[in-house]
């Protein structure tokens, strides 16, 4: 028994509105449509932005002749006719053709999909061996066409939202960068200005110990400022691709050991466990690679203080070295993890943790210049793990 018009409309619309994924929405709709209307193949063509060409967006072989697959008609011809005429088009074979070669001579119906005042696509229905489309078939198919147009319009909106969000995020990062960078530069500058003018006050005498304390702060903050400026320039160079790499054969384990010694000199109580399983040689820029590891160490000092660091270097299939660098800090939450290598990105809500959002961006660029890869895995319970893959020299 056929459903009443209202009930049919409800069934067609409910999933289209409810489902978030357009393919699911279509699958449900086509299933409902199949109960109301006989067809074997169904294809939906979507017209590109210039309105000139149509592309297949969705196709289902449901009925008879499923096995004919690619040989069977998918209604491309009729889609082109609908595009030209902007109206419903039927194409039926003669009695004789129909009975002789069912697959080669299908009954076709093409329905325009209209949305936002224009033709956005075509719905093609294909029947192998009839029957001819009745008036009722057509009204059901037209209703389906309206719902399909809605589903694709929704898809188009969803896609433009995603595209806009991406642009917006980039713009926000730029904006944040300007305010972050000015804050970052101003903080050490504020200390230098504040403590030097304190020492210059002519209405007060400071004792020797206090003078040394203040001068030490000025000295450290000047170093901090230098480091920040270096970082900003470095990132500008990396961004404009005007940096030179000085490749030479080197042992990564030697380089890492060297840096650990330096880190220990600065932070005595830092517990670092280094395990090396490979003595392979890589082609690398010593200074740049050192920069990557120094950056990872300084991140740990900043974001996971007191955490133990475990580093290992192993051989990996395909002439690769795999470096694992893990801390046992608070981890990086899932929502921020995908963006930490983006330029200027900083995990929000950590006011005054010094940083420019450039460190990991610079590191990634350096590793990529070595034809390697760097990524991070994180778990609130276990901490954060950075993994670096670098190609080794072929013959060792």
């Amino acid at each position, binding site marked *: 028994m056929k459903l009443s018009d209202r009930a049919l409309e409800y069934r067609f619309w409910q999933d289209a509105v409810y489902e978030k994924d357009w393919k699911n929405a279509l699958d449900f709709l086509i299933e409902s449509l199949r109960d109301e209307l006989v067809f074997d193949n169904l294809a939906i063509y979507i017209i590109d932005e210039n309105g000139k060409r149509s592309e297949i967006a969705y196709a289902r072989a449901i009925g008879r002749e499923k096995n004919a697959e690619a040989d069977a008609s998918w209604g491309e011809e009729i889609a082109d006719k609908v595009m030209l005429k902007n109206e419903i088009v039927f194409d039926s074979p003669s009695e004789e053709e129909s009975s002789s070669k069912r697959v080669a001579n299908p009954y076709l119906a093409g329905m325009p999909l209209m949305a936002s005042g224009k033709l956005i696509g075509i719905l093609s229905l294909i029947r192998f061996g009839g029957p001819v489309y009745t008036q009722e078939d057509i009204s059901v198919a037209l209703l389906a066409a309206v719902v399909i147009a809605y589903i694709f319009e929704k898809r188009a909106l969803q896609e433009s939202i995603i595209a806009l969000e991406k642009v917006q995020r980039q713009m926000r990062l730029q904006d944040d960068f300007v305010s972050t960078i*000015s*804050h970052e530069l101003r903080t050490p*500058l504020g200390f230098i*200005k504040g403590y030097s003018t*304190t020492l*210059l*006050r002519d209405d007060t005498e400071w004792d020797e110990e206090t003078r040394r304390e203040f001068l030490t702060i000025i000295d450290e903050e000047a170093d901090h400022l230098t480091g920040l400026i270096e970082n900003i320039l470095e990132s500008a160079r990396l961004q404009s691709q005007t940096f030179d790499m000085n490749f030479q054969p080197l042992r990564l384990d030697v380089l890492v050991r060297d840096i650990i010694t330096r880190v220990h000199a600065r932070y005595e109580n830092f517990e670092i466990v280094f395990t090396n399983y490979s003595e392979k040689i890589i082609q690398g820029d010593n200074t740049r690679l050192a920069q990557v590891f120094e950056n990872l160490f300084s991140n740990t000092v900043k974001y996971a203080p007191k955490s133990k660091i475990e580093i290992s270097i192993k051989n990996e299939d395909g002439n690769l070295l795999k470096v694992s660098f893990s801390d046992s800090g608070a981890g990086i939450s899932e929502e921020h993890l995908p963006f930490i290598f983006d330029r200027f990105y900083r995990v929000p809500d950590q*006011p*005054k943790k010094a940083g420019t959002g450039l460190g990991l961006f610079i590191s990634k660029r350096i590793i990529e210049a070595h034809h390697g890869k760097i990524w991070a895995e994180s778990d609130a319970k276990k901490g954060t793990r950075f993994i670096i893959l670098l190609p080794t020299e072929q013959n060792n």
Partner: protein
Amino acid sequence: MAKRILVVDDEVRYQRLLDANLRTDGYEVVAASNGLEAIEIFSSQPIDLILLDIMMPELDGFKTCERIREYSNVPIIMLTAKGDEKDRVRGLDLGADDYLTKPFSATELLARVRAVLRRAQVSSEITQVRYFTHGDIRVDFARAEVWRDGANEPIPFSATEYRLFLQFVHNAGKILSAEELLTAIWGPDYRDEKEILWVSIARLRQKLEVEPHAPTHIITRAGLGYIMPSDDEN
């Protein structure tokens, strides 16, 4: 007696800088590293002046200033970043007395502190009323909480409900028209959205009144608006 200054900054090096300079000029200094800590300290001892940084964890400088201004006229100097006119204007709008832009010199800091303290002395006594009571209801401005007598926890107001309620508290005994309330809480675009106010007042009463249909705290004056009757009317 030495004036006591509360220094609020989450950077230890700024705390030290302010502390060292202020002490040489004979001030007592108390330090806090965020807004919440500052409000706690401010509630527990007499303070003559607050030096308040803006970017801080927990409660930032703007919110801290706003909350302190609900119940106290203690002089406040905001520490703002140079070139950030928006921050300066916002601070002054929220009731700060002056601002000091980072980086600043030690002598400028001391001059500003002297000037603000001088002005405060001329103008009036520091008044500070942390609590307000109305019948069985008590407002704790420092914590931004409203309590009913004998309750174990504060009334769970949303931010908007609390702001709406404060309009009545600060204007107790005065009739407030619907337009005034809508403009104050939701902005001028909402001045005619009476239904929004009706719903909000009803929800406020649900939480505030023992019997929402016979309210004692927020009373409707037909055709005029709403009033929180002053205590003698109660």
